[in-house]
């Protein structure tokens, strides 16, 4: 099984640990990732110009198609953006003509034959939970996680086709393979706040704070995410900005492949755990207990 790896703009420089952890975990599971040079997924320019967005996204799809591969991205914003673009390129023929002309200018063409997968889908559906579980050798014990779904993977559901938009379960099923427990919490399907970061920071922080407080109230030791931008918000922004905010609980966040990698017995250094701004070292303590038991 091989995919074209679509890391998005932030993984290579800001979240290399995410890319590292994905590579390590998928490598162990026999999933090949082809390194290709992609551009931006198109989400940031979507506010400004629809055709610029669709062309930016379509270029990536066309490149993967040319290589005969489907795309895998660990970023839910990139996933949602690319899936939505693929849908719009079928639906909006006027925009499609403009995009086709721009692609042709670069000697590319888009036929609509490739598919975009999110990391969690590949693990849950393509690899399969049984195969993942078989690799878990150092399960967690007593680790309580607040699983954060990520908006752009989940919605609009008829286009992204990720999971049931109102009662999704794929993330919990994958997390529980590692022995960790998922706490029920009200805001698990709500926005992390990052899309408003840089546009209306105060509002973005309000959304983030509400999530953190809710996760803490539910008794979570960690948030668990599977999106580059959610992690930037819960890890980078929380550590840099939210420390001084009164009345905001502090809940560190772990990337799913880091969690899975630890449960698979991989070295923390292969998972870039030390690069998490809020740390992740005490996750090992939940494992040490499991070994002793």
């Amino acid at each position: 099984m091989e995919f074209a790896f679509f890391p998005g703009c932030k993984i290579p420089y800001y979240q290399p640990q995410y890319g590292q952890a994905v590579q390590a975990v998928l490598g162990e599971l026999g999933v090949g990732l082809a390194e290709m040079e992609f551009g931006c997924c198109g989400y940031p320019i979507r506010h400004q110009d629809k055709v610029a967005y669709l062309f930016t996204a379509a270029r990536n799809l066309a490149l993967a198609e040319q290589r005969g591969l489907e795309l895998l991205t660990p970023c839910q914003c990139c996933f949602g953006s690319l899936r939505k673009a693929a849908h719009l390129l079928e639906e909006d023929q006027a925009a499609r003509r403009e995009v086709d002309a721009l692609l042709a200018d670069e000697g590319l063409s888009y036929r609509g034959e490739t598919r975009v997968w999110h990391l969690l889908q590949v693990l849950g559906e393509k690899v399969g939970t049984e195969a993942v579980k078989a690799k878990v050798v150092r399960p967690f014990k007593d680790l309580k996680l607040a699983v954060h779904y990520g908006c752009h993977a989940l919605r609009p559901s008829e286009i992204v086709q990720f999971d049931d938009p109102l009662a999704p379960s794929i993330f919990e099923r994958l997390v529980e393979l590692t022995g960790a427990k998922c706490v029920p919490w009200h805001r698990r399907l709500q926005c992390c706040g990052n899309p408003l970061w840089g546009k209306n920071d105060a509002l973005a922080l309000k959304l983030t704070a509400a999530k953190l407080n809710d996760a803490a109230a539910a008794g979570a030791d960690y948030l668990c995410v599977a999106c580059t931008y959610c992690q930037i918000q819960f890890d980078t922004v929380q550590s840099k900005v939210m420390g001084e905010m009164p009345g905001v609980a502090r809940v560190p966040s772990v990337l799913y492949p880091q969690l899975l990698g630890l449960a698979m017995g991989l070295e923390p250094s292969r998972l870039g755990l030390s690069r998490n701004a809020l740390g992740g070292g005490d996750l090992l303590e939940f494992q040490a207990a499991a070994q002793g038991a």
Partner: protein
Amino acid sequence: MKPVFFSISLYLSLAIFVLGILWRVRGWLTRPTGGEDSTAGARGRAVCRGLSRALFSARIVELGKTLWWDVLLLRRSWRQGRLRWAMHMCIFYGFMGLLLMHALGSLIMEPLFEDYQPTVNPYLFLRDLFGLMVLVGVGIAVYRRRRGLLKDLGAGRDWFAVVLLAVIMVSGFALQAAKIVSPGRYQEMVDEYAGLEDEQEEAALKAYWARNYGVVFPGRKDPFSQEMLEQGAELNEDNCAECHSRPQAAFVSYPLSRLFAPATAWLESIDLRGLLWQLHFLACFLGLAYLPFSKFLHVLVTPLTLLINGVAGRSELDPAAAGLRRAIDLDGCTHCGACSEHCSVAAVFRRLRNRAILPSEKLWTSRAFMDLGSLSDRELLELREGSYICTSCNRCSEICPSGLDLQHIWFAVKDELARRGYASTYEWARFVSIGGKDAPRDGRGGKVSWLAPRPRPLPGGTLEITAPEQRGQAALEQGRYQYCFQCQTCTNVCPVVACLDDAQDELGLLPHQIMHCLGLGLMDQAQAAAMTWDCATCYQCQEHCPQKVPVADLLFALRNRAFAGLDDRQAQG
């Protein structure tokens, strides 16, 4: 021997060169670079600290490695493509060879090699080889500039440098060829070096040189008698051979001289040798004087930035050192276009045609912005839009063959834009739509000519651009908001609405009210709601709508409409 004219032009160009370099160095110490800026003194101390740290520690090993791999073997160019690397190696080593062996021959070669003579092998051969290398490199450079993105960008800024280099090389080859055929030059050498006794000896040596050295003596033609040639060979051995190899070793100039041969008498009469010599040295001196002010500067700055990279990790730079780095980096671009070819948002440029989206172009505008403190309105708009379309992926810095830390320049430019009150394009579109008393300042002295740019397509571009009034409105025109029956589900599930104490007041209109506005055709009012701009794009509204109204998509379309409206106002302005 060398006329006054030569000396004057040499010292004049040398003086310009030295003053130019001093001017650059002054710029590195004092140029504002945005962000936490630093004084010349602080930057000077940073240089001393950096030097002492680099030279008196284990880092000198790193310095050596960088020198070998990055400076001498051009590793970063190699990573960007074999053709690019071959081009650069040819020009680099060809030019260095000529500089050290030919231009500075009397200064460098004579003390080092006792038998050095420009007219003997291997030097005679090497000079042509180096010259050819440079010409091949220049040829590849021209070819590259006629293809792909570089062609699209019209890499016009460095054409003069490329042409100047070609002129130096071609005039050098032509001068050499003209000397080979020249009977006048032959006579000068005979007068200076040979001791010939009578006319018969003179004739014999001429015959020998005409046959074997390619000199053309008008009126004297092969075949010469065997006896004469034998005598000529003997005289050549005694008088000439030690200091003058046969010119066939100059494998470019010699064939060229055969083209000149039939016209030798005429070429002598117009003193072609003298003309070519003047052209050659004047072109060289022009290059020297032009160096500090042109792309040629990279021959000094690029090794410097690469060595700085080699010894100093970027994260540990203090503000003064970081400011110094940015100041140097602003001068280090060769405009090779590698960053733009790989830019994550290059696709956006292809649609919006704002050059300042592309790093190689944005750098030039950034430098002018930092140095001049202001730009034309249009340039400022382009710089701002480009700065905020950048996704800060850092790929340009990773790729830059000159090792420039571009992303830190982009951050500094954004800081500087903000410091001067220029809001992001998004904030500005929001302000223009909503209004309000806290306008982000934009433009000089409050002059309102600052709207988001959409430059016209480049001349010769093949793209058709949709008219602004059509853009961003397809979704609106499909009219799917008309299915809305005002159940308020969108508003009830919106996390932004939920987290505000007085959402109605803070957001202007709530999501269902925006849908209602659209139904009434009140597009401007819908666009003017803070809700339209504070949307988190989480799609809760759209997911939950019982009528399948694409609420979130409509908010995207409204924002597109606002950006397109800025273009209209720009077009009118």
